[in-house]
């Protein structure tokens, strides 16, 4: 009972924060609004830690907290309930931990904004939704959170709502997510039809019982759910909303569009690992989509000049790596990367926010340069983030990415080679970003130069905490090849009990000899170092600055314009839909209307008597009708009335 209460409190705190700030934001002073909202996030984090320690001391038994019955219809009963197990606890740590830091950061970053209270309320609402998503004990509660985070994303991308293009970006994000959500919903329907329940703990054992690997039912279920993941986690072909989502305030990009919400798709696949293990074809699709996204987005990132856009494409690309890991059934490796990525990508975004703050709103790295002396903390922490994401040992990103690549190598060597190419691109665009921003000479205006200043403590403290996590986060999963015991994988292994009965490869130790593992590491580290050097030569030694937009040509121009995918979608889907809408409205509607009216006229012409009546006022008809009905009623009711 007490445990149920604790579970209920985790999402409740941010929800209360949302209500207080949302209902009273015009009456609550900014300072109080910030404290209320951050405190509710921190409270949620503290309770999560309590739950975690409780879980460990209680023998790591999963626990379901049933709050109430939500709907029961035709034999299907859906509970509003939370599940506490290894996976939800890990996600809780990331969501509430990183979330709290970003709340704190926002207090500094957004303080002067007139909608500050509203902003903090939305952040709280987001936390609430995200917590529903990861804590729900069934697919429907997950879906509640799933759509809820989409709404918050919409509200926060379009936060500065006077700007029409921001509003468009917000709408695009929501609608594109909804395309995925329809897939997700159909997946849920299939689950209901197949298993008669949406509870994880009923569906998964039944799945192993009923199906063998490769069954088409499970394929369709997992495929539909994956469509949802493509939307939420920005995979090809539903990724184009994420770069546009950078229109939102930077803390939003850090929290929602990098560290937490976009990893929902990965969470969902890990949660449903039994189903996915039963569907090797879906896994193959996931691996290919993931890798394609990783490479495609990374290649776009190579040429972007907006500091946030680079990070956005980097996020899409890193999410691709996570899906690649899922595709080769390296579920715990994907989770490892979710966590390290949350640390360093949140760090990079918040760092970018600090840079933008210092530059007075400027986001174009061609107008930056030489910032390292002016904003030291931001520079150092950004440097750490860059090293971490590039996969340079012994920082966090190295361990998680290397683990993914190792599993991919075991699965398919070609995919591995492409993965290494992707990580070369990663380190190139990241160091390009770092060098152009912090090295060389300042290229902005004189006014900006005088204005340069380090951010306040509320912003730099989160940077420092995240930097520490980005350095040491790899300790969660130090590999066995170095003589360690992979803690994260061990912790998570009960999650894969059912999967293991389907496919022994899940969660198994790598069969590769240590020498091969060392060789793989060596290759990927060398590759990364090579592209880092290339970036150094280009942007520090030769001090190149990317050309202005107009002078681009050939392939560079195509890539800089994101392969014109947005334009293609516009021309292939949006335009035709609008034309169809136009057609239905002006042609089909008119035609149907004319048909109806001519039928009416025909009737009129046929009856000559009607024609004479028709010259009168319409009201007569009605009057006659009313009188008729009333007479009829009175006449017939006389037995009752009199």
């Amino acid at each position, binding site marked *: 009972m007490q445990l149920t209460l604790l579970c209920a409190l985790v999402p409740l705190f941010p929800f209360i924060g949302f209500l207080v700030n949302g209902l009273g934001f015009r009456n609550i002073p900014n300072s109080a609004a910030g404290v209320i909202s951050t405190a509710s996030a921190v409270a949620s984090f503290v309770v999560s830690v309590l739950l975690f320690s409780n879980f460990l001391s209680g023998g790591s038994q999963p626990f379901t907290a049933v709050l109430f019955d939500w709907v029961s219809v035709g034999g299907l009963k859906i509970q509003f309930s939370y599940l506490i197990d290894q996976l939800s606890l890990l996600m809780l740590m990331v969501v509430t931990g990183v979330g709290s830091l970003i709340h704190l950061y926002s207090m500094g970053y957004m303080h002067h904004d007139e909608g500050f209270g509203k902003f903090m309320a939305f952040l709280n609402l987001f936390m609430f939704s995200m917590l529903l998503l990861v804590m729900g004990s069934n697919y429907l509660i997950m879906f509640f959170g799933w759509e809820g985070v989409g709404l918050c994303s919409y509200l926060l991308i379009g936060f500065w709502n006077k700007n*029409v293009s921001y509003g468009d970006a917000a709408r695009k994000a929501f609608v594109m997510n909804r395309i995925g959500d329809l897939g997700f919903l159909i997946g849920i329907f299939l689950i209901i039809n197949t298993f008669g329940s949406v509870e994880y703990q009923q569906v998964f054992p039944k799945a192993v019982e009923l199906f063998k690997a490769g069954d088409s039912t499970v394929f369709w279920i997992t495929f539909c759910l994956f469509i949802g993941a493509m939307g939420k986690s920005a995979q090809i072909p539903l990724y184009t909303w994420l770069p546009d989502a950078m229109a939102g305030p930077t803390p939003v990009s850090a929290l929602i569009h990098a560290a937490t919400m976009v990893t929902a798709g990965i969470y969902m696949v890990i949660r449903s690992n039994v189903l996915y293990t039963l569907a090797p074809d879906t896994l193959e699709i996931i691996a290919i989509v993931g890798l394609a996204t990783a490479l495609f987005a990374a290649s776009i990132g190579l040429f972007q000049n907006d500091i946030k856009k680079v990070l956005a494409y980097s996020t899409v690309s890193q999410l691709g790596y996570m899906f690649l890991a899922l595709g080769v059934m390296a579920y715990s490796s994907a989770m490892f990367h979710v966590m390290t990525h949350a640390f360093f990508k949140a760090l990079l975004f918040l760092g970018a926010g600090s840079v933008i703050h210092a530059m007075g709103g400027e986001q174009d790295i061609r107008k930056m340069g030489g910032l390292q002396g002016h904003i030291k903390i931001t520079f150092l922490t950004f440097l750490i983030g860059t090293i971490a994401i590039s996969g340079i040992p012994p920082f966090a990103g190295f361990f998680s990415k290397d683990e993914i690549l190792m599993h991919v190598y075991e699965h398919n060597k070609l995919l591995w080679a492409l993965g290494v190419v992707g990580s070369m691109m990663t380190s190139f665009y990241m160091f390009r970003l770092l060098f152009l921003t912090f090295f060389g000479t300042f290229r902005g205006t004189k006014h900006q130069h005088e204005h340069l200043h380090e951010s306040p403590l509320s912003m730099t403290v989160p940077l420092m905490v995240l930097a520490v996590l980005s350095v040491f986060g790899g300790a969660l999963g130090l590999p066995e090849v170095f003589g360690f015991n992979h803690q994260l994988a061990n912790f998570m292994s009960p999650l894969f009990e059912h999967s293991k009965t389907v496919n022994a490869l899940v969660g198994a130790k790598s069969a590769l000899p240590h020498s091969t593992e060392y060789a793989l590491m060596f290759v990927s580290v060398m590759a990364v170092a090579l592209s880092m050097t290339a970036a150094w030569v280009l942007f520090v030694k030769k001090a190149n600055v990317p050309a202005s937009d107009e002078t681009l040509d050939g392939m560079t121009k195509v890539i800089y314009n994101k392969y014109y995918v947005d334009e293609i979608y516009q021309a292939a889907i949006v335009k035709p839909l609008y034309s169809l809408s136009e057609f*239905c*409205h002006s042609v089909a509607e008119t035609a149907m209307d004319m048909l109806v009216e001519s039928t009416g006229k025909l009737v009129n012409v046929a009856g000559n008597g009607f024609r004479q009546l028709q010259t009168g006022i319409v009201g007569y008809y009605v009057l006659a009708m009313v009188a008729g009905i009333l007479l009829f009623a009175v006449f017939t009711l006389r037995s009752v009335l009199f």
Partner: protein
Amino acid sequence: MFTLTLLLIPVVTALLVLLLNGELVKKVALLGSLANLAIAVVAWWQFTPDSSVQFAASYDWLASAGIKFSVGMDGISLLLVLMTTLLVPVIVLSAQNHDYKNPSAFYALILFMETGLIGVFSAQDAVLFYFFWEVALIPVYFIAAVWGGEKRIKITFKFFVYTIFGSLFMLLALMYLYFQTEGTHSAALTDLYALQTKLSEAEQTWIFWGLFIAFAIKMPIFPFHTWQPDTYTESPTPATMLLSGIMLKMGIYGLMRWLLPIVPMAVDTWGTTAMILSIIGIIYGSIIALQQQDIKRLIAYSSFAHVGLMAAGIFSGTTEGLQGATIQMFAHGVNVVGLFLIVEAISSRIGTRELANLGGITQNTPNLTVMFLILLLGSVALPLTNGFVGEFMLLLGIFKYNLWYGIVSGLTIILGAAYMLRLFQGTMFGEQTKYTKAMTDLTLSEKIALFPLIAMVFWVGMYPATFLRVTEPALANLMTFLK
């Protein structure tokens, strides 16, 4: 007795209102409708959640012909009556800011209509059902024709002829059924249900189409909808609210109560056709809504699309579909009345409803923005709002009936978000225009009118069990007639 009281209070209030004038009219009309809401809430409280028809009253009407004045409510009826009594005071209150000429007639007609609507939802006799069906039509026709926009005469005439045309088919079908009953004949609902085994398939088919056309016009279902966008747009907003919030549910309710259980064999054969028409309506309405410039018309088309989904759920003949349609009727009533209220708040202040003239409204109107957003989220079926509960069950029901129908109907999730967010962005966001500069926030009476709707958005969305508990036994009973 509750049913009779619910029918009488509006009539009595209406007659009283006709005798009054000035400000008192509005107050008395509001009080009367609130009293009716109070009765409905008490009835809800007293209701035993089983499948029986409760609070029944029955009197001989045409005794020799076996026709009775027989009313009563099971769970489905009760929910719709509750919806009606909740929405009428909201509609009355929303009209308070507006000075309609000859107000006593205006408010009296609204109240007369309330009786008609409650009668339709509670009638247990086919003749009485038909009687109330027409009674509900006449007041709204007058409201639209007298207080409507410029083109009101032509448009309301079309609306009137259209629906009367439908009613005739219904009358014929009901008459035919009546004459099939045993002995001196009876028009009681239960006696008509008993006919389902007696009627041949050909007979059922004719009756099916007769009733279907009447209901399809009322809702409307594609392609019987051409009266709807114009009528919704040209009518004064209270009439639009009555039409879209409550009156169209007469058609949906009709399908559930007076069509499916009476001619199940024909439903087996022709249900798919009806379902396809409904699904075409979902997509067709949504696609048209994507490009509408007039915000009232945009919501009219969205309502058309939503109704299609409910009808499709009903024709799926699944418990999920029927339960979904029932709860969605309630949710849709709440959302669409709220949305039209917002539209009226905007257009009455600044004199235009064209999206091109709107934008940036949120800068002056924090309250309106929040309430608009909540209602909008309800109507795009975001989880934890009222729209989701119904839409989830409806889509599940359709999906169980046929996978592809389910997927196509599901497109409403995407299209709904697209047109509704376009509406929201176009009105609320962006820079202010010369029209919207002068926009002011909601008045107290508007806020009070919207508040119960907002509360319902969350109540139904978060804890639907309150409502499902009441309708579930009645629907289970209904299901026994379907197979």
